[in-house]
């Protein structure tokens, strides 16, 4: 707690609320059949992206996942462009080409989300390599899930980041399931973080529902990486309140389990904490939410009123044309 100040804490709360509100609205749009395809919500996991990304410099990079709305918003993504992308509009982050699963903003340092689980890890590692080669002072924060931790690319990348002492932090968002597959069944050790031992680097498992714990742990790892001491593997234990995606019937977990975890809602916990220490009045809180609701409203309106990409632009962006600007 002492590593943060009041202003920062309030901004953390605001971002978590924004992510929550954003995804609740996204779900509504989905239910109204305005969103084509699938969508992966991170409701319940907001403390991880917020705590982690607040521990970065603006110029640092992140690599996201298929469940990446929180990452993009925590990295100051534009929710107008995000909503527009969900609706497949030309004004969306990817001009309607990518959709929910592929939101990226390279200017903000979000190197993007791949829909191929585990495939983003080597790419993040390559970004860290480039940072080191160009003597930049930045760090790459690589998000991935407990399921991704079983893909070969996870270990291979961790090994390369270690032997090359790259400025990278590997952050596993362990929400207990890979789709319907429980981590307790597919990860034989108590923690994903235990896998750090295979490479002799620090591995830390923390409470991913505690935004301050995430912030402090990632901050230490980022400093370690930035000062040239190589990567750290962090596992944030969290939980996905909603189904994996639209097709999920939640047959693989009990209502009790979900309820149990909802008691640890990271936003509720943090709000209470701030109220206990008298940093947040109910009025301030309501005000925060109202402002956010307005922002959401504006974002949806922008998306709704935006044009679709013209059909004759179908093949635009397949290849980088000669001399064209990035």
């Amino acid at each position, binding site marked *: 707690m002492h590593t943060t100040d009041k202003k920062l804490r309030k901004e953390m709360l605001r971002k978590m609320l924004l992510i929550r509100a954003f995804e609740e609205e996204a779900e509504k749009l989905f239910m109204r059949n305005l969103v084509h395809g699938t969508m992966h919500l991170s409701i319940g996991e907001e403390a991880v992206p917020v705590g982690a990304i607040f521990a970065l410099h603006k110029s640092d990079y992140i690599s996201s996942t298929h469940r990446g709305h929180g990452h993009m918003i925590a990295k100051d993504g534009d929710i107008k462009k995000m909503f527009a992308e969900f609706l497949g509009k030309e004004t969306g982050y990817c001009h309607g080409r990518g959709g929910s699963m592929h939101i990226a903003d390279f200017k903000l340092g979000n190197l993007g989300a791949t829909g191929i689980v585990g495939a983003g890890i080597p790419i993040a590692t390559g970004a860290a390599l480039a940072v080191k080669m160009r003597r930049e002072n930045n760090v790459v924060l690589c998000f991935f899930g407990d399921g991704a931790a*079983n893909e070969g690319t996870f270990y291979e990348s961790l090994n390369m980041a270690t032997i090359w002492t790259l400025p990278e932090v590997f952050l596993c968002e362990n929400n207990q399931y890979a789709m*319907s597959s429980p981590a307790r069944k597919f990860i034989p050790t108590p923690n994903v973080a235990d896998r750090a031992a295979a490479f002799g680097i620090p591995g830390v498992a923390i409470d991913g529902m505690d935004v301050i714990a995430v912030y402090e742990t990632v901050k230490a790892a980022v400093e370690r990486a930035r000062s040239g001491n190589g990567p750290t593997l962090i596992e944030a234990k969290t939980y996905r309140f909603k189904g994996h995606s639209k097709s999920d019937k939640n047959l693989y977990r009990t209502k009790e389990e979900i309820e149990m975890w909802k008691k640890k809602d990271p936003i509720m916990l943090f709000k209470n904490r701030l109220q206990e220490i008298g940093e947040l009045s109910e009025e301030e809180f309501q005000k925060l939410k109202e402002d956010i609701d307005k922002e959401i409203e504006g974002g949806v309106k922008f998306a709704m009123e935006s044009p679709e990409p013209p059909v004759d632009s179908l093949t635009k962006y397949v290849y980088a044309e000669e001399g064209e600007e990035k």
Partner: protein
Amino acid sequence: MSIITYKEAVRQAIVEKMREDKSVFLMGEDIGVYGGAFGISMGMLEEFGSERILETPMSEASFTGVGIGAAVLGMRPIVEIMFADFLTFSADQFTNQAAKLRYMTGGQVKIPLVIRAPEGSGTGAAAQHSQNVEAWFLNIPGIKIVAPSNACDAKGLLKSSIEDDNPILFLEHKLLYNTKGEVPEEEYRVPIGKSKIVKEGTDITIVAASIMVKRSLEAVNLLKGIRPEIIDIRTIKPLDTEPIIRSIKKTHRLLVVYEGCLTGGIGGEIIASIAESEAFLYLDAPIFRLGGTDVPIPYNRNLEKHSVPQPESIAKKITEIVEEKWYA
């Protein structure tokens, strides 16, 4: 005859073979209580248990190899790859191991392995979850590739695939899963490597597989005074060209329709095997192909629809060919 969905046909083939042959088992991600991403294995866990409905960690590269190793010892694994796009992870095990192990060891071993994967666009899942992969492994000897267009073929071909002693890639189309068709009540098989005329015609031969057979049939209703003959190749590899050659001798024109990207798609192989055959001598028109646009599948619904052949574009192409508007 009973009328069931393509999805149910796939399910029945697996269940019936698993009841009949203890060496058959299904492995893949989330195929247990979840029933698989597309619900194919719904209920199988209850009947067969967690050993024969083997849920795997997210390790496609290796669990494909696990299937091969089990096949080497005489099991008959069915490996489900959740989306055909992820076959990139299976690439080494499938093409460098499964396809070559028998040959490299001088025939010492058989690999009775089936890899099932749902392919295709139209679900708004964007570039990494929508690819048609029928041509991806066409250049690899030692394997077979099957892509059924309807429920009856899906069940009959999947059973034949499970009984085949070679590594087989069995491609199911996501948009066909809920389409219905007539399926015999009694035991039957559809042989691998046999194409089929699904509509008799006189003016042009249309060759297609999987969803493009359905769209080509739909295109017929949009035609004015043109009667195409439509051939469903059903097996991509090995390709059965005889019926195509016979048909061309009658229609004198050929159009190959496929969902995969135009460049490097299955059209090339089909056309080349016809262009070198005696059928060439019967052609009254250049040989045309209508494939997907060379673009990663876009997310936007409208762009996505326009990126692959639709009944309208197929009908338009057929008309242009028959009316000899070749290079208009």
